[in-house]
């Protein structure tokens, strides 16, 4: 999403539990901002309940969890379930970080849409989200009025 949009994608980024490795989430936050998205930074030491509550108040389209220490096999399925229970089933849940291969089927079954493992290029994350967003906008009824545009240069 390099062109400015009147409907930017909104994504909540958070870390769960006592995982305090912040470099990854910070780098991703800046990359997504550069890609034209509104990044709501919820911070560290979040519980699944806090993340779901924030996602609903902020009406984000996507929840991105950064996980660099264990715990995700418990906390992410719980988060996905709370999200469904509280009316947030339309929100996309993605995760990035250190996710062992053997954990991935469990997370996907629980409702995690996409897992970005260590070493993923941030542009790949932006591209994935952008494609998902454009597809969703195309599916939605074309309700938005076009923005007043500057007169074209002759």
């Amino acid at each position, binding site marked *: 999403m390099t062109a400015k949009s009147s409907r930017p994608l909104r994504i909540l980024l958070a870390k769960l539990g006592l995982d305090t490795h912040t470099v990854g989430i910070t780098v991703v*936050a800046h990359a997504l901002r550069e*890609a034209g*998205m509104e990044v709501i*930074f919820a911070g560290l030491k*979040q519980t699944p309940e806090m993340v779901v509550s924030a996602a609903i*108040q902020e*009406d984000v389209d996507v929840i991105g969890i950064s996980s660099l220490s264990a715990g995700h096999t418990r906390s992410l399925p719980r988060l996905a379930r709370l999200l469904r229970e509280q009316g947030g089933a339309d929100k996309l849940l993605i995760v990035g970080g250190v996710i062992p291969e053997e954990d991935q089927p469990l997370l996907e079954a629980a409702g995690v849409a996409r897992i970005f493992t260590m070493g993923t290029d941030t542009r790949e994350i932006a591209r994935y989200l952008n494609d998902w967003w454009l597809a969703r906008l195309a599916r939605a009824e074309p309700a*938005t009025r076009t923005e*007043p545009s500057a007169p074209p240069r002759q």
Partner: protein
Amino acid sequence: MTDIGCALLAGQVAAGARAIRWLDDQDPRGREVLREIFPHTGRAHLVGITGPPGAGKSTLVDALIGEQRARGRRVGVIAVDPSSPFTGGAILGDRVRMQRHALDEGVFVRSMGTRGQAGGLSRSTYDACLVLDAMGYDVVLVETVGVGQDEIDIVSLAHTTVIVMVPGLGDEVQAIKAGLLEVGDVFLLNKADRDGVEQVGRELELMLHLRGQDGEAAAWRPPLLRMVATRGEGTGAAVDALEAHAAHLRASGQYQRQAGLRSYHQFTATLREAATRRLLERALRHSATAALVADVHDLKVDPYSAAEALLAQTEL
């Protein structure tokens, strides 16, 4: 009435959040909901929190939420951060400082990007205030982006404008003071445990004293209160001051007048935007006026003459 409008008036968080999203995205469904809920607005006390970057606004808002909750009030918060003028993207990080209220059902925090609007607010901040008001929040705290000298749109939006100052900002604070001093209703000197607080406090008191001498402004003397927001010190007195100002506005009839002014302000802004868009669309459809617009780009005519010429041709 729409489902979202109904649910919002019943205080449902997801409905209010969705309505704000529509309004922020300029989705026409947002305007429809706004029309429905407008008669149910006008109750909430709108408080603007502004001041230079690094003054501790988010932490201070967190402290104010805590105190308001202790007094049994439901609190809405709108925290505005700048959007990139190039990509439109934004990092909205004010929630981080308000985490302890994350699971309190009496608190609703919404982050907004400025989305190209100058002045310290986003275009839809006013709309979001109306939504939170209609949802039944007693107080709506609007935290602006860190402002310099004249980014003070918050003044026309809020009942009560709070200016946050801190010691140790150096010379730049002088310029800020000149611009913000005239518009603040309550002054909070945050980080009052730091060096230099006495000097800044004395300067502010002097300037406020001078301001208090001119005519009508004398009716409300803006208080200057010291706070250490990270420790919650001074929070009770700050909320007392907000309530005293609201009471003052109500007693003098300004509370209602301000709401009317706010609405009129939004009315003219909406007209200005729509009229400009329609005028330009029409101008670009006709070759003579399209040539005039092109001349502006090519610097063949000064912008004022071009605007006058276009208005004359469209008989405005």
